[in-house]
């Protein structure tokens, strides 16, 4: 995070043009297919996407659009069939799952500490740093709690703290709030927005929820389904949320309708 100078605690929008020069993630002509039982199934088709440093990009799509596959590729959990994925920061991106994926044999604090340990933070510093990260997601008191003692929203906040502990250049989020109730999701949106703005994060956020995408993202990218292609893209800055939500919803419905006609 060398460019802290750009925005220190200022939630103002960064300048997209300047940051496109040094992107945090760049996908060029990325395709992914799986060969099952002699049939080739293309999941992602010729995806080109650039996420600038400090940018918050939401990828929106119905089921079967390959959203999760896209994140797996960027996270390095899987390889593209063709094309190139560039994460210039060099560090492994952090990834948050829909299911918190916290380790139940560790306390919340230890989960965060494990992430610190795996990236080489010395033992002495770990507890203090873990506490600070939990404090950031407003879970100071959860340090010694077991995962099963926490609510769904608290688990996702611990998962966020763990992801932040990786100090990655890019945070990938795979529908992290989809399984939460509406009020909890609402609150977590506000928290994520705050943490993003305060910590100079780059976020690539995948969701099927239009309101979520419009609310969080500076840019919303619509993926078509089967195969996943980039269908449309909107800049979310400058447009009233409700109007944009309506427009994006229309486009998504149109995408989905196409599949019924075939």
């Amino acid at each position: 995070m060398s460019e802290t100078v750009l925005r220190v605690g200022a939630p103002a929008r960064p300048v997209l043009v300047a940051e496109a020069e040094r992107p945090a993630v760049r996908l060029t002509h990325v395709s992914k297919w799986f060969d099952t039982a002699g049939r080739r199934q293309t999941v992602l088709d010729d995806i080109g996407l650039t996420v600038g440093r400090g940018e918050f990009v939401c990828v929106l799509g119905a089921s079967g659009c390959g959203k999760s596959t896209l994140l797996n590729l960027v996270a390095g959990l899987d390889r593209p069939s063709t094309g190139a994925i560039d994460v210039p920061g060099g560090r492994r991106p952090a990834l948050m799952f829909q299911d918190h994926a916290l380790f139940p044999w560790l306390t919340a604090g230890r989960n965060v500490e494990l992430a610190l340990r795996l990236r080489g933070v010395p033992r002495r510093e770990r507890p203090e740093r873990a506490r600070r990260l939990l404090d950031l997601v407003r879970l100071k008191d959860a340090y010694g709690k077991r995962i099963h003692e926490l609510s769904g929203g608290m688990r996702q906040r611990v998962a966020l703290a763990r992801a932040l502990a990786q100090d990655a250049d890019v945070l990938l989020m795979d529908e992290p709030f989809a399984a939460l109730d509406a009020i909890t999701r609402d609150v977590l949106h506000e928290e994520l927005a705050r943490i993003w703005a305060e910590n100079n994060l780059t976020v690539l956020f995948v969701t099927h929820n239009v309101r979520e995408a419009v609310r969080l993202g500076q840019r919303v990218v619509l993926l078509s389904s089967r195969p996943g292609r980039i269908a449309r893209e909107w800049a979310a800055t400058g447009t009233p949320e409700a109007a944009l939500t309506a427009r994006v919803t229309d486009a998504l419905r149109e995408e989905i309708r196409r599949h019924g006609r075939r």
Partner: protein
Amino acid sequence: MAAGETVAPREVRETAAVEAGLDALDSAPAGTARRPVGRLLRQRLLPPVVAVVLVLLAWQAAYEAELKPDYLLPSPADVGRALSDQWYEGTLFSTVWTSMERGALGFAAAVLLGTALGLLLSAVRPLRVAVGPVLSGLQSLPSVAWVPAAVVWFGLTDATIYAVILLGAVPSVANGLLSGVDQVPPLYLRAGRVLGATGAARVRYVLLPAALPGYLTGLKQGWAFAWRSLMAAELIASSPELGLGLGQLLENARSYQDMALVLATIGEILVVGIAVDLLLFAPLERRVLRSRGLAGAR
């Protein structure tokens, strides 16, 4: 966030307050109330005690009805006398200790070997396909079947006894670890990879802790097999050169036609088996499951 608003401090405070409220409402109540000791004793200890007393009463009744001559069916009191004789001769603890020492040593070696074997098989797919079925088969082979072979190979020595223990317990431990590893949710492995846990770190920080419940079950079964194997070995490989263990005592009692001592020894073998399970494995298992939120209120 579509419009570039600045989050006002008041709004942030409001979010924090709502969040705190949600946290308080949603989280599980802190710790379940401890059940009073008296009730716990009544509910968990009383039934087995009653069952044992009933068995003893039925036994006494059978003895008094003289269903069998008393050199075949001694009374509970005769067996108690055999036990107290052992106690006063000072052989009770030394005999039990000899067997337990062998059992513990053999089991420890079986855990080391079985764990290494399980890890190797879980890591090398072709090896697992080749050896896995054999290992499962070995688990159902009564280890007493190895005793004659071991006696021929090693003679009447401690090596025979340990060989039989290992052959009995290693497959259980290895299989337990394998099934524990198989049951690890793939999500944990992916999360581990994202965090940078690869190679040895992956095994140490993700795979082994995640596989612990299955592994513990394997250990428990491994101990049961080790103890049984030990008794079989001691019973058959009985010679004055070998220290006197429970199995040898059992064999000696049989050759003296001392039925009370036979039954007393069987009781001792049973008690050791139950005690190790109750005092070692049950608390361990309960702790592991409870800390993961997997155990019900038990």
